[in-house]
């Protein structure tokens, strides 16, 4: 499970329509959620496909513990 700053992810969803499809599938499977910490927006992703796609696009998330 990884946490990404929203500003690193949302521009990619605009740029890569196929990434948006992976995002939708992850959301449908409830494998991602939005989070706000200290006034900043984040996305927490549990879906390995989406994590892999983001990594391939050069975006690394911060590992987070599952609660």
């Amino acid at each position, binding site marked *: 499970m990884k946490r990404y700053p929203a500003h690193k992810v949302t*521009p990619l969803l*605009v740029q890569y329509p196929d990434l*948006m499809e992976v*995002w939708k599938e992850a959301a449908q499977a409830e494998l991602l959620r939005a989070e706000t910490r200290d006034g900043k927006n984040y996305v927490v992703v549990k879906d390995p496909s989406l994590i892999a796609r983001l990594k391939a696009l050069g975006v690394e998330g911060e590992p987070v513990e599952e609660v």
Partner: protein
Amino acid sequence: MGESMSVLDELYREIILKHYQSPKNFGVLPQATKVAGGMNPSCGDQVEVMVRLEGDTIADIRFQGQGCAISTASASMMTELVKGKKVAEALELSKKFQAMVVEGAPPDPALGDLLALQGVAKLPARVKCATLAWHALEEALR
């Protein structure tokens, strides 16, 4: 007359500041079905609009990005206004808003708080700031 205009201007400034400091619907929408974005290099604004459509209704909407007071306030007020509206209604409101800030058309009360941005029509350099989120919304609804 001059005094009432300055009172109104002050009210409009407060509305813009309120939406800039505490923007509504700012964040990520995991259940988005559509996403679109835009940039305004002259001011450094960048925005992504995420929409969840249910049929032809905007069931939910969020925006993400960074921008000046005008672009952030415009995006915040836009999301408040179009949430729950039909796509056709939202596009009609977009037309009205852009007519107001681009052409200086008479403001339509249907725009609600967005009337606070009518003065942008006199500031050509800031028109793109005000319309950025609306262009993204239109693209997302296409």
